[in-house]
């Protein structure tokens, strides 16, 4: 799985990524533990509320400081989290993730 995350990380688009399973990070390429912790807490909370309120949102983006943390809900309720520079076009991040999402879900 770590190799797969290595494919997700792409210079100029995605700096680091991790998988949130339940309330814990199962695998990660994050260098900054602070950002990883914030992402974990934030997306756990957001997607718990999505489930509770029965909305169909499956993607969240949080811009904090110079970074953007993005969370993508996978089919098995895991969340693929990635970090990019705030100035990176969010469409690039989304396109890249949607391209690789099936591989992560497989």
């Amino acid at each position, binding site marked *: 799985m770590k190799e797969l995350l290595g494919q997700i990380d792409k210079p100029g688009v995605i700096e680091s990524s991790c998988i949130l399973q339940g309330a814990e990070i199962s695998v990660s390429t994050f260098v900054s533990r602070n950002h990883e912790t914030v992402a974990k807490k934030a997306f756990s909370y957001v997607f718990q509320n999505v489930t509770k*309120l029965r*909305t169909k949102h499956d993607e*969240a983006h949080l811009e904090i400081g110079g970074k953007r943390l993005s969370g993508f809900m996978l089919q098995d309720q895991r969340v693929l989290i990635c970090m990019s520079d705030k100035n990176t076009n969010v469409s690039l991040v989304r396109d890249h993730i949607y391209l690789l999402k099936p591989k992560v879900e497989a």
Partner: protein
Amino acid sequence: MADYKILFTGSVCSGKTTAIRSLSDIETIDTDASVSDSAIRRKQKTTIAMDYGVLEMSDSARLHLYGTPGQERFRFMWQLMMSDLVHDAKALVLLVDNTRNDPFKDIKFYLDEFRDYLVQRQLIIAVTHSDQQAHPDHAYYMNELKNMGIFTTVLFIDARYPDSVLEVIKAVLAEREPSVDWDELGKRLMEHRPPVIEDQSCEASESEQQEQIEQEKKPAEIKLFNAVSLMDAAMNTRGITGAMHLGADRKVLETNISSMQNQAMLKSMVNLVSALEQKVAFLGHIDNLVLCGPEHETLSVFVEERQALGLCSEKELSLSVVKQQAMDLLQWSGE
């Protein structure tokens, strides 16, 4: 005959069209259309392609004045103008609306956008609307710009008055064009041209124009642009279906979101942002939190120190557009 070109740019309502109208000897060419976004708070019409005017500075010198549209969604026009029409302009005049909540955010944005263009051109920062909002003053601008590493001319102007806008032109061309008698030119412009009345007034009746002139004479602390509320402006914005305005304490001031589900979700997002603001401030400011999905409206929370804005928008609307509209709405929100 020497021909010069100057390009005016800046945010919506910063006075680009007005400045060009103030100086132009010909009937200006503008491409105004009804506002369909957050700019509705400030005016009914906005430039969608470009403004153009001509000033005969002397018997041997002519100035062509070009203005970009202010809204970021017309950015393609900026590129087109920079690479074609005004590739040979002498200067870029960045008009900065002093009533915006953070004028320096605008400066940074436009300088980033026009960075390459500025390499071989002079930059003038012309601050407008300082009669409505005196602060930041000139000294503050100079100091902040110095901190940003920007060393350039800053002028405070009133775009409605030809002699005031002429100061900008003088700063660019005085040394380049010796044939111009600037005092005479200023007198000619003021004698033959009354101050331009902005925006809506171009379609207003005489009595409405008089009323507007009276309004402009009122003290600066009176807010002129509160006729359209933040909520109304948000609802006038293409693709926005609901809005929630929150105060500095992140409590809801006003909302028109009818779906209880969306309201609850937005409130939970605001709670998360509030908690993070307190606990992880060392990572930097939280700008926004966006939630989207293929079968549901996009929900977003945009955060500033003094206020926050929650938006529901159509899922087809790009996240960049939602963000830009939200930033504009917050830039003009009154206390």
